[in-house]
């Protein structure tokens, strides 16, 4: 993995560059490595949920079990965290989870491009969640949705202050939501690349960085799954606020 860096010049951020697949400039519609890896994400998700579950057997095969468990896991999460009436948004949340999960996992394939390491991607995801949930809150509850910021259990004098704090924290949500995911993905991949670069530079002790990269990969696999989980469960929490704004 480190050979293409050429000696000591480790360039850990090169892996994040957006490149056109067939050369030329990157305009908004150009097929790029983003296109490729996002398409693979869709394929992987479809492979699990459609090809894996194609038997529709009463006693499931391993792949069908995995598909059913993924379904059950997200379904239960939506039901438990956001409430029973949130189940109608289950397909949306499931789509979100599948995209982040497979983008993270596929990003761990050597030479892969990690779409979720880009703030542009995660910000669009987080802002979509933020605006959908906020719009949903106003549509379902009208101005009562603002009760989310007006904490009636607090002393009256404190309420405006608390409302301001609540409002700020509400608006900061998409920032933390998106930067958490992109940051975790980018940091892990960059560190892996740096360690891999050391392999050529360390001569006889070349096995040390390899061991480090191996350990790091195990950790990164964990991070990939956890970040997908965190992103999804936070979406459910925000959805719960929109459906039930009273605390």
């Amino acid at each position, binding site marked *: 993995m480190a050979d293409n860096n050429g000696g000591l010049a480790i360039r850990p951020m090169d892996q994040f560059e957006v490149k056109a697949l067939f050369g030329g400039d990157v305009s908004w519609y150009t097929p790029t490595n983003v296109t490729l890896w996002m398409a693979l994400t869709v394929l992987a998700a479809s492979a699990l949920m*459609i090809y894996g579950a194609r038997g*529709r057997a009463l006693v499931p095969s391993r792949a069908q079990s995995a*598909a059913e468990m993924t*379904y059950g896991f997200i379904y239960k999460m939506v039901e438990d965290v956001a409430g029973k009436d949130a189940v109608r948004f289950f397909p949306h949340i*499931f789509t979100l989870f599948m995209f982040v999960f497979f983008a993270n996992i596929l990003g761990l394939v050597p030479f892969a491009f990690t779409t979720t390491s880009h703030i*542009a991607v995660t910000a669009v995801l987080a802002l979509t969640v933020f605006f959908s949930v906020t719009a949903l809150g106003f549509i379902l509850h009208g101005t009562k949705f603002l009760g989310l910021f007006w904490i009636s259990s607090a002393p009256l004098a404190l309420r405006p202050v608390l409302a301001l704090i609540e409002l700020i924290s509400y608006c900061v949500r998409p920032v933390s939501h998106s930067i958490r995911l992109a940051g975790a993905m980018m940091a892990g991949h*960059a560190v892996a690349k740096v360690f891999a670069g050391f392999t050529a530079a360390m001569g006889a002790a070349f096995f040390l960085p390899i061991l480090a990269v191996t350990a790091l990969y195990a950790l990164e696999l964990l991070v990939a799954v956890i970040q997908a989980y965190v992103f999804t469960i936070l979406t459910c929490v925000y959805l719960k606020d929109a459906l039930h704004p009273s605390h």
Partner: protein
Amino acid sequence: MAETAATGPGMPQLDISTFPNQIFWLVVTLVVLYFVMSRVALPRVAAVLADRRGVITSDIATAEEFKHKAQAAEEAYHKALAEARAEAGRIVEAAKAEMQEELDAQMAKADAEIAARTAESERRIQEIRDSAMDMVSEVSKDATKDILELFGAKADARSVNAAVAARLKGGA
């Protein structure tokens, strides 16, 4: 993230010129993925899960039904067994009574026969005894006459007979 500063060119993540491209393909991907999941994958998996739940529920119901049937069969078996026992008891009782009756009849018959035979035997013994008595007196009379003749005494037949008869009666 400290490495980024050392590498010079900066973070590709902050290269705004690639944002429209990424956002465009992300939106395309999400729309495609949403339709594939919500129209194809999720209904299929949901149907399989619902099927399985249905089958399990109906299997449990069937098992429950079979259990009830087995219990009913067991009850019927015990009932039939008890009835058969009672019936057998009744039959044994009836057979015993019948046998007793027959036995009694046979005994009575046998007793009657024995009594008849006994009476007959007694009668014949009496006959024999009587005839023996007669013969004894006859022989005695003859013997007495012969003895008297041997002694040379002229025996009057009638007085000899009376004397022997009296003698026999006394000796008897």
